[in-house]
C-alpha cells in the first residue's frame, strides 16, 4: 500500500483515494479461511486491468491510477488487491477508486479459492484430500 501511495504522488494532484482489500478470516463449511489462492487467466487479466486504468483516466480525469492484484496464496489479513486514483479534486478520486475495484471484481478474469491448510501457490490441481479445518 505504501508503494501505491508513492505512485499516486505528483504535482497538482489534490485528492488521492486508495482502497486496499484484505483477506478476511471468514467462516466456511470447512472451518475458517486461512488463506486465499488466487488464479488468473494472466494475459487477459493484465490487459483488463490496464484497460480499466485507461477508462478511469478518461472518465474521472484520474491523472494517476494503480490497480494491482496479487496471485497465488495470500494469507488472512494480508492485502490482496489495491485500487487507487489521484485526481485534481476529491470527489473524482473516490469515484475513480470505487469504479476500479468494482469493475475489477466484475470483469477481470481472476478467481479465488478458499483454503484452510497450506499448499503451494498457483498449482494447477486442487488438493486431493479436501483440506482439514483450521478453526
Amino acid at each position, binding site marked *: 500500500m505504501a508503494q501505491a501511495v508513492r505512485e499516486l504522488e505528483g504535482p497538482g494532484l489534490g485528492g488521492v483515494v486508495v482502497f486496499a*482489500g484484505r483477506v478476511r478470516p471468514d467462516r466456511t463449511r470447512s472451518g475458517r479461511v486461512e488463506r486465499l489462492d*488466487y*488464479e*488468473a*487467466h494472466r*494475459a*487477459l487479466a493484465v*490487459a483488463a486491468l490496464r484497460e480499466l486504468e485507461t477508462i478511469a483516466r478518461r472518465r474521472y480525469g484520474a491523472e494517476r491510477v494503480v490497480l494491482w*492484484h496479487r496471485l497465488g496464496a495470500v494469507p488472512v489479513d494480508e492485502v*490482496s*488487491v489495491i485500487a487507487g486514483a489521484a485526481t485534481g479534486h476529491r470527489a473524482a478520486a473516490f469515484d475513480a477508486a470505487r469504479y476500479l*475495484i468494482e469493475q*475489477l*471484481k*466484475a*470483469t*477481470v*478474469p*481472476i*478467481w*479465488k*479459492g478458499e483454503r484452510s491448510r497450506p499448499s503451494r501457490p498457483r498449482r*494447477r*490441481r*486442487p488438493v486431493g484430500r479436501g483440506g482439514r479445518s483450521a478453526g
Partner: protein
Amino acid sequence: MSARVTVLLFATARQAAGTGRLRWPVPPAGLSARSLVRSLGERFPKLEPVMRTSRFVLNGSYLTGLARRVRPGDEFAVHPPYGGG
C-alpha cells in the same frame, strides 16, 4: 498426433475437470464452439453445469455466442464468474 486445441479451465471449471489444461482433439477443419462445449461436457459431467454460467474466450477474445469455429492450434478458455478482490 492428431489436430488439437488447447482448452484452459479456471477455478470451478478446473476443479470440475480435475485439470486446468487439456489438449483436445478436433477435426482438421475445426468445429463450432457449441460442439466443443458439448463434447467437453460429455467427457466431464461435472463441468457441464459450470459451463452453463461461464464465459468462453477464443484466442484471447470473448465469445458472444457459440457459433464461432474453433480450429486446430486455437486456445479455448472457460471462465466461470469472476471473483477477484
